[in-house]
């Protein structure tokens, strides 16, 4: 079959370096991946095309790029699964990282963030003579996280990083979870404390993008949620994020409704002078809501059947 790759290229050594598009037509077998096609181009049509790849079996994490607008491993993406009826496929470098040349991006910011979570095991107490004893379930669970190949796909498509480069991002936070969830690690509390800070676990907006694009089933966002859980359990309830979760739950438990009117003030702390700027900052939105008759209700009557909702809460909150 014939496939046309529409590749976004960039050569920093051009007189006036600007990204540009170039199309290549490749005679491909129907089992070809996008990487197979790119290699055909690089080897036989245009050796100046730059990309990273090695294992061609989705384990080395080199070949992350955007294919039809979403980050994917080129070696795990069959042409037939992404080309349109005319055989076109759009290929661009991964996002949220500076482009070096063609499909190669600079992963330094990515690794700086991984490094920021102190990504090494920090056991407590004297080393045992043999192995640490650990339940196999715990190890199997961590295998799910260790399957991360650090390809940067989740970071490429993270919607928070797009607007806030301070966010640690899904890959680094998943890596952090690999230690927090490791029964052998002794630095849990210190780790959680650090991850509670600005740019950490509470800055994820739960858009699910990272879960969707991760080629290895690591589900970074689920790991971030697990970190939040562990942080609250460990007593880190003073953050905006933790309070937001509490206020949210309390409102549902109380009336069955989410009371949006009080959500922000209660989350920020109504009598907290430090939250004044944020509250004032929200005022224009509130005023606009009033103007459009969209200000949320201040009070809600409990929904009918609220007792069932509360039963769910009781069940979930009961000590295990």
């Amino acid at each position, binding site marked *: 079959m014939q496939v046309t790759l529409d590749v976004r290229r960039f050569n*920093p050594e051009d007189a006036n370096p600007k990204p540009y598009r170039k199309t290549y037509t490749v005679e491909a077998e129907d089992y070809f991946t996008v990487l197979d096609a790119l290699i055909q181009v690089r080897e036989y049509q245009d050796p100046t095309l730059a990309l*990273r790849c*090695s294992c*061609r079996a*989705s*384990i*080395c994490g080199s070949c992350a790029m955007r294919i039809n607008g979403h980050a994917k491993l080129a070696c795990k993406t069959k042409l037939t699964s992404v080309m349109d009826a005319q055989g076109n496929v759009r290929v661009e470098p991964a996002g949220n990282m500076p482009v070096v*040349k063609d499909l190669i991006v600079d992963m330094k910011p990515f690794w700086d963030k991984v490094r920021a979570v102190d*990504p090494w095991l920090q056991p407590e107490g004297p080393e045992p003579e*043999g192995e640490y004893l650990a339940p196999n379930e715990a190890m199997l669970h961590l295998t799910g996280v260790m399957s991360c190949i650090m390809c940067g796909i989740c970071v490429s498509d993270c919607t928070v990083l797009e607007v806030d480069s301070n966010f640690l991002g899904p890959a680094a936070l998943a890596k952090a979870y690999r230690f927090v969830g490791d029964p052998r690690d002794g630095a849990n509390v210190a780790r959680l404390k650090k991850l509670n800070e600005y740019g950490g676990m509470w800055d994820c907006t739960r858009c699910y993008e990272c879960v969707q694009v991760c080629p290895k089933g690591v589900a970074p966002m689920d790991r971030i949620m697990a970190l939040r859980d562990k942080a609250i359990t460990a007593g880190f309830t003073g953050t905006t994020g933790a309070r937001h979760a509490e206020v949210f739950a309390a409102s549902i438990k109380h009336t069955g409704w989410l009371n949006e009117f009080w959500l922000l003030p209660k989350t920020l702390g109504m009598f907290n002078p430090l939250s004044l700027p944020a509250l004032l900052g929200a005022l224009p939105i509130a005023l606009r809501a009033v103007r459009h008759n969209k200000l949320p209700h201040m009070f809600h009557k409990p929904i009918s059947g609220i007792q069932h909702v509360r039963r769910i809460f009781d069940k979930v909150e009961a000590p295990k």
Partner: protein
Amino acid sequence: MSVYQHDVIVVGAGLAGMRATIAAQSRGANVAMISKVHPVRSHSNAAQGGINAALTSRGDSWEDHALATVKGSDYLADQDAVEVMCQEAGAALIELEHMGVIFSRDEDGRLGTRRFGGQEQARTFFVADITGAAMLHVLYEQIMHSKVRVYEEWFVTSLVMEDGECRGVVAIELMTGQLHLIKAKAVILATGGSGRVYEPTTNGMVVTADGHALAYRAGAAIMDMEMVQYHPTTLKGNGVLITEAARGEGAYLLNSDGDRFMQKYAPHMMELASRDVVSRSEQTEINEGRGVDGCVFLDLRHLGRELIETKLSYIQEVAGDFANVDLSKQPIPIRPGNHYIMGGIKTDVHGATSIPGLYAAGECACVSVHGANRLGANSLLDTIIFGRRAGEAAAARATEVGDKPVPESVLSVDKEAIRSFLSRKPNKDMAAKIRLEMGETMNEHVAVFRNEAGMQTALQTIRQLRERYAELAVQDKGQVFNTNLLFTLELGFMLDTAEIICASALARKESRGAHFRTDIPQRDDANWLKHTLAYFTQAGPRIDYAPVTITRWQPQVRSY
């Protein structure tokens, strides 16, 4: 150009390189690591099945592991080296666990094992079927912790030789295209295997025998290069591996009649005989018409979906992606494919090569613990044990030798070579075409079954390809990430290595382990119980020999 200086420079950031780096640092050396790809992209991450170790604390015997290794090697391994490796394996494994590797456990929370080929005992420790990746990422965690300098995406083009000793490396920084000199009192090569000399192969595209060729060109002895392993279970199209752990967990090999044909060839060990034995059996079935489309079948159906999904999930993914097979429902077509090289840069048990100041560890080295055929899961062990030993020895050397001068003119040879590739007018030829011809030739003639005429053809073809290589032009004229130039230089390394493999294979007039000659099918201990050595000369490899060290296991007839 800049000049950098360290006590020890480690070339390669796979398992061997990282383990060496950590060891050298712990001995107080100023060590740096250099790698043409980011460390976690190294090909060690492809190792699936596991790592062998006899835990004597729970009643296993390292001597038993050593004997299996020696028998597996068809008695070509040096037994002193095998003893070192197997004796130190338990402690090394526990050390890895303490660093953070999330090895599978048994019901009591202790390390769990699986069976691997060529051994009666289950002594292979594993992380599902991503053992290599899980180990590589944990060692990289330690590297991040150590804050050693990593020259990431730097490509070593040659070793710096002065007064017969190695004093550093020359390397291209890929991001800028600049050529640099890195001086060191000791250099450790940990550049991995040579898979891409063959086509297809289970190895990644960066596995291009650079270290073999770098050491060869510098004058080091390169040993037993005829010993190339074909893995019994690889996918037809792209050569991707299906781990031996599948058979370790109980999978069957079937021919087109649905027979478990290993009954004929290895009635006792069946599917878990040594790799050379299983690969030959499969190839015989295929050659005699009991295959389908050049393949036989690996059948996992009776293992059940749950086992497959927890212990073999990565190959389940690979089988789905590349062969459209659900392992719990269908047998998968597989065939023997190029996988590993037992031969390499000759070292002693401290990683020292025949050149002062130059060390080697991992797949590029030949200690020799694998002899004529490596046991599955012994390679990861090799990288960890001899990586550490090489790191320690290199650090020790650094405290003994003083700073010695290196003229900056050492860069001029590489500079000129690069300039001529870039300035040459393109002809119709391409690096990719030469590589493909090389790979297919090697895969046809220097494979599971070999004979004199075929190996001669291969050698002649490689020599012709070298002539074409000398005329090759690099079309990308840029500085930044010139991958075109990179592949061209890698191809040069591979052609050297291919030539060494052919010459070494032609020299050995017997069949042993992976080197099976249909024209001389017998092992001949009287004349050939010895290592093949290859040395660089302008006219091609000069072949010499070295004795095999035998400590306690006399050669026996080998049956499984």
